[in-house]
């Protein structure tokens, strides 16, 4: 085993290889590794954020759903109320109409009765005159006794 210039040759080649490694190997590879690390971290962050957003969205969906349910319930209640109101109104109207018709009918009836009474009255006057003529045996001058007859008829 001889010690010789190989030592120096090895020192020189060592320096050269370390220099080359320092310049062309280490920086790009560690940079790539760091970059990838960053990318992965960002990806994980994004995934976390997406999960959070999803949760938030679900919560807002829930809220909207709740609200619309409540609205629907209110609407249905209002509709029910309105319906019963309409029914009540209809009932009232119908009642009023019925009352009105009844009143009209009653008025008609009364009118008929009155008219019949008028007719009867007129006929009564005639009958009274005729009856009185029969009883007196003489004709009665209607004109002379007009007042009397009318009084009689009015009393009927």
């Amino acid at each position, binding site marked *: 085993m001889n010690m010789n*210039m*190989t030592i120096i040759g*090895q020192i020189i080649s060592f320096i050269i290889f370390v220099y080359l490694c320092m310049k062309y190997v280490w920086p790009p590879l560690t940079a790539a590794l760091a970059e990838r690390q960053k990318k992965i971290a960002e990806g994980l962050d994004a995934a976390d954020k997406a999960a959070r957003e999803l949760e938030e969205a679900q919560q807002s969906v829930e809220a909207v759903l709740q609200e619309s349910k409540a609205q629907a319930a209110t609407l249905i209640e209002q509709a029910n109320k309105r319906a019963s109101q309409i029914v009540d109104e209809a009932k009232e109207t119908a009642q009023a109409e019925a009352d009105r018709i009844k009143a009209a009918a009653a008025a008609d009836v009364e009118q008929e009765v009155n008219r019949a009474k008028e007719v009867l009255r007129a006929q009564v006057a005639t009958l009274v005159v005729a009856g009185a003529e029969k009883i007196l045996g003489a004709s009665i001058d209607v004109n002379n006794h007009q007042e009397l007859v009318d009084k009689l008829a009015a009393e009927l």
Partner: protein
Amino acid sequence: MASGMTSSEYIAHHLTNLTYGNHPDNGWSFAHSAQEASEMGFMAINVDSMAWSIGLGTFFIWLFSRVARTATTGVPSGTQNFVEMIIEFVDENVKNVFHHKNALIAPMALTIFVWVFLMNLMDLIPVDWIPSIAGMMGIHFMKIVPSTDLNVTLGMSLAVFILIIFYSIQQKGIGGFLAELSLQPLGKWALPFNLFLELVGLIAKPISLALRLFGNMYAGEMIFILIALLPFWAQWLLSVPWALFHILIITLQAFIFMVLTIVYLAMAHDHH
């Protein structure tokens, strides 16, 4: 085992580097034996170690920078995934041990880990394959595991040692560094003793770093060579379990070299 060699020749052959250097008699030439290589002294270079080491380092840079160029931040491809796994493993180790700001440490740890691992990995290639091919091409010696060459491991640990000194002085100033070396653990009245203790500790760092890796890989290689001396039909009985076990060792040694480098440099940054 190649024919026409004794066992000791075979082992010696497999443990000899292809050395090119200034021989006192032959001038600049390839050494034809371990003897000639050692006669060359310091003015020589282990061509096989350097070639495999630089080749594997280039492979590492090529593979990783290719992935780095095409790196996407989306879903990674198989290769990118594999590379990112290693990067994250290294980064995690650096972050656990080294708490200062220094753009050099992590890439250096990555380079050390992968490069040392690849150099160790050559140990799992059957010991005769590449030396035989090289022999056919007329290359007499071919040691393909650079980390079984003490020059290689010591070269790396010395580079780390230089960085330890550099960052110690840069972080604490020369005075602070010297104070750290001389004023502890026993206070200023035992200054020479402290200095001796701390200097031994300091110098032990690169030496232990280099010798640990070298020793493990050299021993592993040696055992593979010894197994290769067995009759061919019996080799698998030992080489397969040893290779499986060795997968653990080569990874572990690369990891230890990396972690200790980080620890030493973190200590250089820490103020005591």
